[in-house]
């Protein structure tokens, strides 16, 4: 369970996230959408303990991320927008390191790491330094790290960027299965099609404020007609319909 209550973040005069309140239930995939600069990544960074909120609270499986950070992080997995991984470790060593940090027993690691590498088609690369990995391979490695410690709540920031179609499909299946096992998933994405197909509920954020949240049907009530695609709802809510006006500069 991921719960946000009045979560706010200020950077000087800039209000990046404004009193965000929402809840992601166990087994639910929540899609968090918004234009660039809407505060999506800032929200993920606050939820994962990388940033301190200016106000409000965030709880991961009941643990407050500010006052009980270790307990919260123990049950949390993070896939950041930029999968930077220690370049001088091999893929297998990175997984080993992640496993140790999250307290996965060594026998389980020795069994699971080759399986995970194989699952993400990294078996041939597991002994290579991450230095030589492509962006997509690093993304897959981070996803493998998540699966190694089996979190109860998962934060993903653009998890499918850089993945080839096969890996993208695999990642989507993984997310569905994790949700099926009761994991609460909070996913930022720009790919509306993925949000439409994968997410149980969707939140649309713009300029730090949550404009709407709910199932696709509920969102249609906010900003679109019956059967309207998510893109139309998104553009209607975020003011993106003015794109024709913007094209005059082309």
């Amino acid at each position: 369970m991921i719960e946000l209550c009045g979560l706010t973040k200020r950077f000087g005069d800039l209000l990046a996230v404004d009193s965000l309140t929402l809840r992601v239930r166990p087994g639910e995939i929540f899609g968090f959408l918004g234009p660039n600069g809407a505060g999506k990544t800032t929200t993920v960074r606050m939820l994962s303990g990388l940033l301190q909120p200016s106000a409000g609270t965030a709880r991961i499986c009941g643990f407050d991320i500010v006052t009980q950070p270790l307990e919260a992080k123990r049950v949390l997995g993070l896939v950041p927008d930029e999968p930077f991984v220690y370049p001088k470790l091999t893929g297998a060593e990175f997984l080993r390191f992640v496993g140790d940090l999250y307290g996965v027993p060594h026998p389980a690691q020795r069994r699971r790491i080759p399986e995970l590498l194989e699952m993400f088609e990294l078996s041939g690369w597991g002994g290579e330094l991450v230095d030589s990995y492509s962006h997509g391979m690093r993304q897959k490695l981070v996803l493998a790290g998540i699966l190694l410690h089996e979190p109860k709540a998962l934060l993903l920031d653009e998890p499918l960027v850089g993945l080839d179609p096969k890996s993208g499909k695999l990642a989507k299946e993984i997310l569905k299965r994790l949700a099926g096992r009761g994991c609460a998933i909070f996913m930022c994405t720009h790919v509306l099609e993925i949000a439409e197909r994968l997410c149980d509920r969707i939140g649309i954020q713009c300029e730090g404020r949550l404009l709407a949240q709910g199932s696709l049907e509920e969102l249609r009530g906010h900003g679109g007609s019956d059967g309207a695609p998510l893109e139309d709802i998104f553009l209607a809510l975020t003011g993106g319909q003015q794109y024709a006006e913007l094209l005059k500069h082309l």
Partner: protein
Amino acid sequence: MRSSLSTFSLLQRRRVRSGLNRIRTQTPWEWARNGAFILVGLWMLSGLHYGFWRLLSYLDGVELIGGLLIWKLTAMTLLTTFSMVALSSLIIALTTLFYSSDLKFLLRSPVGIRTAFADKALEAVFFSSWMIVLVVLPYMTALAQVKGWGPGFHAVFLLLMVPFMVLACSLGIAFTLVLLYLFPSSRTRDVLWILSSLSVALLYMLLRFSEPERLIRPDALRLVAEYLEYLQAPTAPYAPSWWLTQAVSSYAHGRWALFWREAGLLCLCALGSCAALLALAGVTYAKGYSGAQESRRQRRPIDIPPGLEHRLAAGSPVLASLYWKERKTFFRDVKHWSQIVLVAALCGVYLFSIHRLPLDTPDLKSLVCFINIGIAGFVLSSLGLRFTFPSISLEGRSFWVVRSAPLGLETLMLEKFLFSLVPMLLLATLLIAASNHLLRADRFISWLSIGTIWLLTWTLCGMGVGFGAVFPRFKVENIHQVESSAGGFAYMACALALVAVTVAAEAWPVKMHFQARFGRADAWDWDWVAACAASLVLVNAAGFILPWMLGRRCLQRYEGE
């Protein structure tokens, strides 16, 4: 289409704008912090200036040869500066010219390869030289003050420092260009990089083992005339440092023909080296850059048994794992290897210098062993600046992995501390114990120096990690940017102050010890000894705990650069 020159000037304008934006967006806390450290820096520089002024005033007062001694010392200082900058550029040029993050943007933009090279080479020159120039400045201002020369001398020196630094850096840059061009394979390049470091280290050791100090000891020469001849002879006449010495000296004495000749030679050679580098870059840079982007494949096992750390620290698996990761990543970076080679050479030269000290009485030898604590402390502070202080920043952009993991940041700091402490303790013990053995220090001084250096090492490592956490820079491309940052400067100032205060606190008990050795009956005043011991413990505790706590707080609140 823009000309190369206008593109180059455009690229420099983006640097100026970035710098101005950075200043403009500083928070009040950053203003206060940076202001405080600038003040500390100025205080340190004025201390250096005072030291140089005392030395130069003394030399100037030496009858007949005072002037000669001053210019000999100046020539040697500038030669050392030149060598240090050249060596520094060797390391910085590799990362700046071939691994900077903005290179991808620059090289895919309509910017000529030579223009892009010139832009990055300028950056390499700046980062290789600014700190060393900052240390030479107090020397030159002290010289001008002693001799009563006006602002014209300073202006000429500063102007001539530009071609001087360009010439020094062009050596390192040219070597790097050729190396990357000839050896695009990363494995060969790494081996060559280590071999180059070994060669430099060997050269340094050979130079030292040839005992050049014999030449400036008058008693080593048969005739006074020989000594005078040595003082008057050029110091490395074909090196740019000699041209600079001659130029500033002739300016100061109004010998205009010589001034214009030497200054012109310096400037022409600098221009020539720039032209040669640009020509070389036109041929080599693109291929070298392309080769630098390739990583070598090195198959390692997927099934990883628990490391030594896991067995030694079974009760703290997270700490063990952080240490294991640190060991792996540290020793796989070839740039660290070259530094380790140079540190080994430094230790060899250090002990050789101790061994060759012309000391004849046991008392003098023991006294030098005490003073040696300060010198070893200085060496450890410098190594701390190079290895301990940047260790937090070396987490780099992967910092999110540990920050989002279930571990307190103090665990990360503790691991960094332990990773530095083990080799530093070994090195400190080697330097002090071997020096004590070579000089046959008495028992009291031996134990005092060993105990003190252990205490200092402990504190310096804690201070280095603490300051590193106060000033983390996870997004730098070059470790030297971490070292030469305001934080590095602050660490070094505090570390040197700690060493000085520690040695000063022990000076009283050591004085009593020597009084007792010379036969004074009531030499020991135990109240004083207790006070000195208490101040020693207090200063070292403060030197460890304050930066550590501040660092932990800053790291927990870290929100990006």
